């Protein structure tokens, strides 16, 4: 960010810096704990340390999707786009978390089971959730009107959230190769907890930051729309709205409808 913008948002910048420092400290602690505190597993060896990021990413992916669904549901009830900003931010992070779960799980599976992928119930339900998160982002990106976009996203997120409990219980209720709740050394359990807390803080910070950006973007859009209406009311020709795909470049140059 440039210096001008930094001076404009001193409080927000300070809060972001503090949150960033906290998250960095937690993540550094987690990494050190994973490689220095956690004992090496007897059967799998060091590869077992994938577990600490795999479980943490999975937890963040599932929790983020629930936040997206909750934001979507609150939007449907209150018709407030503020909730949709939370939903979209959490939806993006859910896609990231579920994607990382699949990738790290695949690397684990190759080392533990000798295959990159198998249609185990938990793997399959997680893949379905990642696909729903992808569809959520894809659908949103194709709708221009904010309220239509929020409505479509909310319906998809609420329906997609039904898959979250299925992911959780899949390893217990259905027969598969994915471990449900394996016995762990107390130090392993502690390190896993530290990792989950650190990843949760990271994802929460990213969701909050992304939500702030979405809110700012919505305000800028509203100001420009108001300027358009003012221009039209004064009898001047409304300048053509920029192509949404070119929007970012258009606004960085000049704003003739505001200037006049």
């Amino acid at each position: 960010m440039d210096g001008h913008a930094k001076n404009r948002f001193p409080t927000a910048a300070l809060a972001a810096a503090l949150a960033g420092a906290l998250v960095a400290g937690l993540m550094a602690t987690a990494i050190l704990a994973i490689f220095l505190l956690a004992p090496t597993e007897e059967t799998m060896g060091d590869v077992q340390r994938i577990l600490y990021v795999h479980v943490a990413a999975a937890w963040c992916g599932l929790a983020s999707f629930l936040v997206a669904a909750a934001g979507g549901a609150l939007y449907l009830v209150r018709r407030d786009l503020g909730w949709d900003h939370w939903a979209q931010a959490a939806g993006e992070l859910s896609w990231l978390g579920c994607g990382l779960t699949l990738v790290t799980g695949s690397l684990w599976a190759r080392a533990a089971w000798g295959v990159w992928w198998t249609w185990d119930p938990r793997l399959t339900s997680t893949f379905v959730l990642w696909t729903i998160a992808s569809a959520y982002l894809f659908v949103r990106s194709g709708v221009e009107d904010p309220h239509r976009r929020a409505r479509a996203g909310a319906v998809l997120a609420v329906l997609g959230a039904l898959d979250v409990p299925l992911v959780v219980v899949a390893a217990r209720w259905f027969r598969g190769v994915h471990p449900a709740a394996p016995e762990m050394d107390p130090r392993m359990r502690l390190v896993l907890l530290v990792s989950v807390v650190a990843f949760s803080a990271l994802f929460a910070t990213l969701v909050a930051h992304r939500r702030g950006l979405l809110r700012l973007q919505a305000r800028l859009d509203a100001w420009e729309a108001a300027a358009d209406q003012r221009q039209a009311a004064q009898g001047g020709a409304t300048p053509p709205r920029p192509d949404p795909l070119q929007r970012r470049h258009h606004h960085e140059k000049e704003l003739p409808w505001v200037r006049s």
Partner: protein
Amino acid sequence: MGALVGAYVVVWLAVVLYVARLGAEQQRLARRLTAIELAVADAEGRQPRAGSIDR
């Protein structure tokens, strides 16, 4: 060992790329905000006030 390194590289690369994307988006919005503020100030014939538009 390769799987372990690969998993951690993928995770951190993804996080870094997402943070970089957020940073780029933040810079773009800050430039857009500055452009609007300058345009409004220009239309009203005054100097833009520092901190006149807040998030």
